């Protein structure tokens, strides 16, 4: 589904990704782990097309398309969802308005009919229930006054409503307590565990991977994938640390 080859990227002239190669097949949940400053967040922003991140070499193919040629909103319409490490607050715009606008823009880009207000609310209610997020919260302004955990849960509700083919989740587990972690992890399983879908799960910790069992785990270090293995690789990292595991490789 997602095929990244020899990707080089920089921000403000600083090289962050140095020849990253990675492939995620349909039906696969692929975890990316790595020490601070390895380039994990940069990878997610480059995939999401965030302004300021410059790709200097390499290619990214997403479901047969050249991802790097698409504008950020076109990437979303093509089925890519980027889960933010720090979801943005948008005062004055309600979650309902924001998500309905987003979903209908995506549907329009795909040549589908827009959802009516009633149809949308029904869908939103179902997805919010799945993540135990009060519907009243969806009537509030986007992420304004939400706690760290509520923001992450709201991100997952967004993912449920938009129903993407592929999700890049950047440290979705940061700022979550144990209960919220379980709810978010199970949300990922329910929404994205599907033979036709894929997930790139960027995380620091094993604890999310106890709930969302990855099919593959890769270690990102100094802008490159240095090692790929099964779920046991994450367990070894947790026990031994990055230095020890990478030294063995």
């Amino acid at each position, binding site marked *: 589904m997602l095929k990244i080859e020899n990707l080089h990227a920089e921000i403000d002239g600083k090289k962050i990704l140095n020849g990253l190669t990675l492939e995620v097949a349909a039906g696969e949940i692929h975890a990316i782990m790595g020490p601070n400053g390895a380039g994990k967040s940069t990878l997610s922003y480059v995939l999401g097309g965030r302004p300021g991140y410059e790709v200097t070499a390499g290619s990214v193919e997403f479901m047969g398309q050249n991802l790097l040629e698409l504008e*950020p909103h076109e990437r979303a319409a093509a089925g890519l969802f980027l889960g*933010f490490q720090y979801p943005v607050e948008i005062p004055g715009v309600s979650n309902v308005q*924001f998500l309905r*606008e*987003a979903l209908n823009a995506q549907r329009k880009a795909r040549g589908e009919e827009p959802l009516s207000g009633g149809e949308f609310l029904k869908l939103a209610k179902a997805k919010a229930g799945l993540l135990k997020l009060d519907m009243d919260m969806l009537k509030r302004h986007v992420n304004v006054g939400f706690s760290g955990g509520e923001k992450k849960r709201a991100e997952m509700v967004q993912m449920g409503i*938009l129903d993407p083919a592929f999700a890049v989740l950047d440290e979705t587990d940061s700022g979550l307590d144990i209960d919220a972690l379980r709810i978010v992890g199970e949300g990922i399983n329910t929404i994205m565990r599907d033979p036709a879908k894929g997930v790139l799960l960027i995380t620091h910790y094993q604890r999310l991977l106890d709930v969302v069992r990855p099919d593959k785990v890769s270690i990102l270090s100094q802008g490159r994938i240095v090692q790929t293995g099964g779920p046991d690789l994450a367990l070894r990292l947790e026990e031994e640390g990055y230095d020890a595991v990478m030294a063995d490789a």
Partner: protein
Amino acid sequence: MPETDALERPTTRDEAWRYADSAWLAQAPVDWLNHWGTVDVPPGETKHFNAFHSAGPQASGGSVHRTRVHVGAGGRYEHFEINASHIEYSRIELEVTLEEGAHFEFGAVTIGRANARQEFVTRVIHQAPGATSNQVVRAVQGGQSTGNYLGRIEVARDAQKTDAAQNFRAILLDRGASANAKPELEIFADDVKCAHGAAIGQLDQAAAYYMAARGIPPEAARKLLVQAFIADALAAIDDRRIADRMLERALEQLDALTL
């Protein structure tokens, strides 16, 4: 001697007119410039005023609207006004005197394009104890337009327990656009609360990217953000139908700014 002879012609050397269009001021009829409408709110009563100025076909000339408002004890005056006119100079000025326990609620928006110079000017006089005022002004300026807010709050010596708030924010959509803020506080009482804030900037790029990442195209994202920005100034309108109608008309004017 006709009264008009005694009238003074304001110039941009006057503090309260410093951002005005000096060429237009120099030739505008002096009695026009000095004309004040009046509104009297009897004690304990409430008066509302809502107005919308849309962009007319002509883009030259100027206009000055000045109103003196007196709000009796325990009374309430609520004034909401959107100025999307793109004549060269338009000034909307209010001088509000508040008696004991009275309240003044003010929400104003300028939507500018071309060479429009638009300003809201308020002078709120807290003359007696316990009066409150809340003013929210938003400016959305495109083209070479300028949006100004000059807001003066005066608290008299015995106007204890005054609570006055004033907030101005401007968004500049194009390189040539500008905005000026001139908040002034003159406080002679000691037990008062006065808050004021002003900020001039661009649309929130982080929010725009967040919207794009969810599939909202740039034009639609800009529109949503501007709508949210303007809605701040209309948030205190109790009748949501009126607020929605004003917001809707504002958005129509914004479309003309080729957002």
